[in-house]
């Protein structure tokens, strides 16, 4: 990997200063900034950008200085003699062909090096996660670990991660700027090569813990703007604990029957669970270790731990989850999930009452 240790840091500082000045947003956190890489991949991209940035801004400054010089020195003045008629100067023209060519070389060489280093093959022990783009949400499958989740996924800091990405419908693009560049998530043509040959890949090692926001970066239809995802980088111990809490052991845990005898004192979470598992919810949704096994919609295991409802449609809260169940389209126009009263994408309305919605929401939010 090309290395620009000291000069790079100087440029980086200047760039950040420029950003701060131009943005005038003093102190605001930019959730999706590309200027603060937290992985080797994002870092490599930034370095090569700063190289190009330096050279090209240099040329820009030169051109602007020359233009200003022309405007100052060669303005029309009354009584000035007719300018000398010069048709060209071969030596000069060769000069300003060759110099840009040399500069292009200085830009192109590290760029092409980075093209290859950032598209390396994953190591044998890399953590492989299958990413599937859907209109308009993200699915993450940890095949070896038996974990499926949606819109938020966990990765261990310091271990190589290999995302293998395909789409279930149209083209999406996976982009978590602080972890690195985007890759399109393509529907794979059915053919002799098979799916594996045509999936897209991102390989990176996260270097800092944190929750990093990303969103779909290829226009994918009506709700394209509301297709966020969150990548949570944690220590390997926390990661192992998360996997354990998410793992579907295959055995549906015995439902904690609230029983009608409990009457008005009943627990809305337990009742919500009962409603969830007995209504149409499970036609589309799955929750690990329950009888919910739907695969059309997002997996809802530990749903309450996600920061948003509907892949960025609204912050996670009892109220917003209720609103989402009642009418997903009121929070996210185009969403393909049916509401309580309205059909969507060919699915009939769920017909849940307001009371049922409140309880199901309480159950889902409780899944932390």
């Amino acid at each position, binding site marked *: 990997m090309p290395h620009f240790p000291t000069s790079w840091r100087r440029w980086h500082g200047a760039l950040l200063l420029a*950003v701060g000045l131009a*943005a*005038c*947003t003093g102190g*605001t956190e*930019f959730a*999706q*900034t*590309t*200027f603060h890489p937290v992985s080797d991949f*994002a870092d490599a*991209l930034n370095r*090569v*950008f700063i190289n*190009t*940035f330096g050279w*090209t801004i240099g*040329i*820009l400054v030169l*051109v602007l200085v020359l233009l200003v010089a*022309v*405007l100052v020195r060669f*303005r*029309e003045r009354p009584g*000035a003699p*007719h*300018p000398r008629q*010069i*048709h*060209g100067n071969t030596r*000069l*023209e060769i000069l*300003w062909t060759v110099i840009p060519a040399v500069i*292009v070389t200085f*830009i192109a060489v590290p*760029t*092409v090096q*980075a*093209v*290859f280093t950032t*598209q390396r093959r994953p190591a044998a022990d890399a953590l492989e996660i299958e990413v599937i783009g859907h209109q308009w949400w993200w699915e993450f499958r940890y095949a070896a670990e038996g974990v499926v989740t949606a819109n938020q996924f966990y990765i261990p800091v310091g271990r190589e991660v290999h995302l293998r990405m395909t789409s279930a419908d*149209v*083209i999406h693009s996976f*982009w978590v700027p602080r972890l*690195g*560049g*985007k890759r399109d998530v*393509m529907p794979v*043509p059915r053919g002799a090569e098979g799916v594996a040959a045509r999936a*897209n*890949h991102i390989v990176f090692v996260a270097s800092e813990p944190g929750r990093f*926001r990303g969103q779909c*970066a290829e*226009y*994918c239809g*009506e709700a394209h*703007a509301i297709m966020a995802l969150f990548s949570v980088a944690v220590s390997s111990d926390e990661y192992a604990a998360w996997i354990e809490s998410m793992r579907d052991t295959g055995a549906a845990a015995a439902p904690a029957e609230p029983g009608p005898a409990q009457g008005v004192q009943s627990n809305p979470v337990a009742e919500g669970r009962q409603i969830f598992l007995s209504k149409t919810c499970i036609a589309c949704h799955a929750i690990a270790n329950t009888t919910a096994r739907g695969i059309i919609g997002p997996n809802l295991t530990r749903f309450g731990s996600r920061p948003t409802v509907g892949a*960025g449609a609204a912050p996670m809260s009892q109220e917003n989850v209720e609103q989402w169940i009642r009418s997903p389209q009121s929070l996210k*126009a*185009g969403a393909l999930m049916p509401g309580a009263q309205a059909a969507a994408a060919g699915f009939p309305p769920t017909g849940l009452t307001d009371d049922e919605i409140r309880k199901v929401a309480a159950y889902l939010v409780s899944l932390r």
Partner: protein
Amino acid sequence: MATVDTHVPGAAPAAARRSVVWDLMTTVDHKKIGILYGVSALVFLLIGGLEALIMRIQLSRPENDFISADLYNQLFTMHGTTMVFLVGMPIAVAFFNYIVPLQIGARDVAFPRLNALSFWIFLFGAIFMNASFFVGQAPNGGWFGYANLTSRTYSPGLNIDFWALGLQALGVASIMGGINFVTTIINLRAPGMRLMRMPLFTWMAFITSFLILTALPVLAVALFLLTFDRFWGTLFFSTTAGGDPMLWQHLFWLFGHPEVYILILPAFGMISEVIPTFSRKPLFGYAVMVYSGALIGLIGWGVWAHHMFATGMGPIADAYFTISTMIIAIPTGVKIFNWIATMWGGSVRLNTAMLYAIAAVATFTMGGVSGVMHATSPHNLQQTDTYFVVAHFHYVLLGGLVLGLFGGLYYWYPKITGRFMNERLGKISFWFYFLGLHLTFLPMHWTGLLGMPRRVFTYSSELGLDTLNLMSTVGGFVQAVGVLLLFVNVFRSLKSGERAGRNPWGAATLEWATESPPVEHNFQKIPTVHSREPLWLERERIEADAFGPAEPMHMPPSSYWPIVTAAGVVGTFALFLVPVWWAPLPGFAWTFIGVLNWAYEPTH
């Protein structure tokens, strides 16, 4: 037209009695068709600009609900499609039409009726596509309409049908125009006007016409595949049947990148006319300017996949397209340095036309610089599909194309109307437009690199991009003020502008040898040319030709068959929207009748 006839110039009593509207509908005069193109393009500029302003209002703050997602998606699709196909291309063609025959010393284009047909197909196709707003189903797949989102499965409405059929019609018009201008420039040059004596604007028109002639058919192929998928159940882009949406991307950008040069080269040509005229010096390095233009056009065919670095083509393809794209910066840089060298040592007059030309050089350079950043393909993965790209191509297209065209408008307006545009108002509108442009698009570089994807109708307040977006919105309105003042100037100066003579700027090229506005047949006698700057170096001889006794000539008569045929062609496309198989048949019949009558119409 080069045939000998005894038509007496200026004597057309029958035509004089007819109304202006009828005259414009049936005209085959390249100058009137040029004006028709120009006025249409300016109207569409207003529509496309209005679409942009509505989007900017929506984005002025996070989580805004000024318009719906669906309407926003229609607006950004139609804004892009309008600005590329209904403004950028036709406004360049307007100048090709008006100026090129004058610059090469011709009486008209090679195929005057075909020229009229091009215009009417363009206008009807443009109206057809915009009519989609009235049924609430304007195109909503983005201006590059990526498959498989555009398939019947994921876009069941009429939106994409309007887009595909409308673009196909516009492509037909453009290809005809390309044929016409290639033929005109090769065949109708005045005696002595060798290729290397042609004005730079004509050269760029020539290269652009070649690009139109070769690139638009690629788009036509892509659109046919899409249309067949949508209407007749073929599966070119359907993955479930082994089709591949990547095919669309390759075809579209194989057209789309030459298209960028189709848009920018005419503006380069205009800048290359304006700068020497107002520096009182010939263009520095004429030959290199010609060759670099041709080279840009040629290399422009080998860089298309730099629009697709994020699609996972693999490192070999990425490396190739990185290098080819960076190489194209070299001839472009040479042009910029040659423009500066033209002004260097000159006597620079800073009127509005020249202000626009210099602003275009500066602003386009900024777009070029972000273009090289873009070509840095690893980091392109951060930039692509964000506001950084939006900033880049607006710097190129508004900075290069629109500023250059506005400069060209101020430059040639006296030739077209016989009057100057108001300089004071011109400078005021220039500063509004120029500052508005930078206020809108400079912040977008940061908006993009700080994480805002393009084509989103809303953005989370978590992104921290409120201020930057608000700046762009304010800038958009400042630009709008500049454009409206320009329109006011165009209309007011028609009546109240100061009268301009034949050659008010003291320019060097042949169009300034005729009256302003030129007579119908342009020159009394086609002048013979011996140099690149005929009006600087051989003025007496040229004027003796241009204003001497008229030579025998034949001018083509007006015809209404082009507009009738154009209505048939676009009508046929439109009738495909009706879901019965025989619906387009009346359109085919109408077109056939038009073509038949055209073929048998006497032209003497």
